[in-house]
């Protein structure tokens, strides 16, 4: 019974934590949604354990916990792939921005040099 309470508390804590991050604008929606779904699913399963054991046995798992582990591993894999994807996208944006910045900086430098020369000539 105590493990059920632990699960329930953990799920509630996760939900509060995610909502708080979202509220403070630290986490963007697209990442928050996934974790909120996880928190709600954990909450439901913790509140009503027969649901987990029922699904697990229906799918042919001898030990319900194994079903839980499989789902968790799959979820974590999906999240890390998504994060790698996001990081790659960020790197592309960053290098594009850096290139733009460098080319603009050179142009400003050149224009500045031209303007300085022009004002010197006028004096």
């Amino acid at each position, binding site marked *: 019974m105590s493990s059920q309470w632990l699960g329930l508390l953990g799920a509630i804590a996760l939900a509060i934590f995610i909502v708080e991050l979202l509220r403070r604008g630290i986490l963007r929606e697209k990442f928050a949604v996934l974790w909120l779904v996880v928190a709600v699913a954990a909450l439901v399963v913790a509140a009503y354990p027969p649901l987990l054991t029922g699904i697990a046995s229906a799918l042919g798992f001898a030990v319900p916990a194994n079903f839980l582990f499989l789902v968790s591993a799959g979820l974590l894999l999906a999240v890390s792939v998504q994060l790698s994807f996001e990081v790659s996208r960020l790197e592309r944006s960053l*290098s594009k921005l*850096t290139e733009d910045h*460098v080319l603009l*900086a*050179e142009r400003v430098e050149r224009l500045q040099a031209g303007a300085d020369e022009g004002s010197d000539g006028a004096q």
Partner: protein
Amino acid sequence: MTDRRLLVAVPALNEAGSLAGVLTEIRAAQPDAAVVVVDDGSSDETAEIARQAGVVTLQMPYNVGVGGAMRVAFRYALDNGYRAVVQVDGDGQHDAGDIATLVAALADSSVVVGSRFAGSKDAKWVGTHRRWAMWFLAVVVSRVTSTHLDDVTSGFRAADHKAIALFAEHYPTEYLGDTVESLVLTSRAGLSISQRSVSMRPRRAGRPSQGTLRSALFLGRALMAVSVALMRRPVTVG
């Protein structure tokens, strides 16, 4: 007025010791060409030396690697209407006298690679293992690009306007992307590649990477770069 046709691009990372000499050499060999130095986040006076020499200086705010530095140079070339770009390393390895040879070869191919192995035997300073790895890589890339190439990791190369348009957008920025992967990219975009024999000197500063393990690692990463380049969807130039 500067000649709007040829741009000599010099990617440089902490080359304060050799850059001034390299720039003087390029000026002497190609007085009509424009020169751009891409300072790849150096911590020494590389950018100041380039500015003092009066060449266009693109200063990366942090280190992006040779591929990233060259991509900026290609974008600069595209934006300013240059018809050809020659890459010359800032460490003094490349002989500016060979620039003309590479540029002349652009008449019948889009990318020309300066090879230190083709028809010459004065490359003894490259370590044995490393040399073997380079040979193997050359065989693989030659097959993939259907072009005979001896020195695919050479950073001494020339690109015509078609290659400039391709590279400004798609130049690979990952490790070895600037050398090996870019050749695969070029070939798959339908552009032609050729090589010319050039002489190369040992680096003035720093030492070349050597050792069996490092060579094996180098080869593995290079083959990875080739595989990735082959898996990518080919890009076409308009």
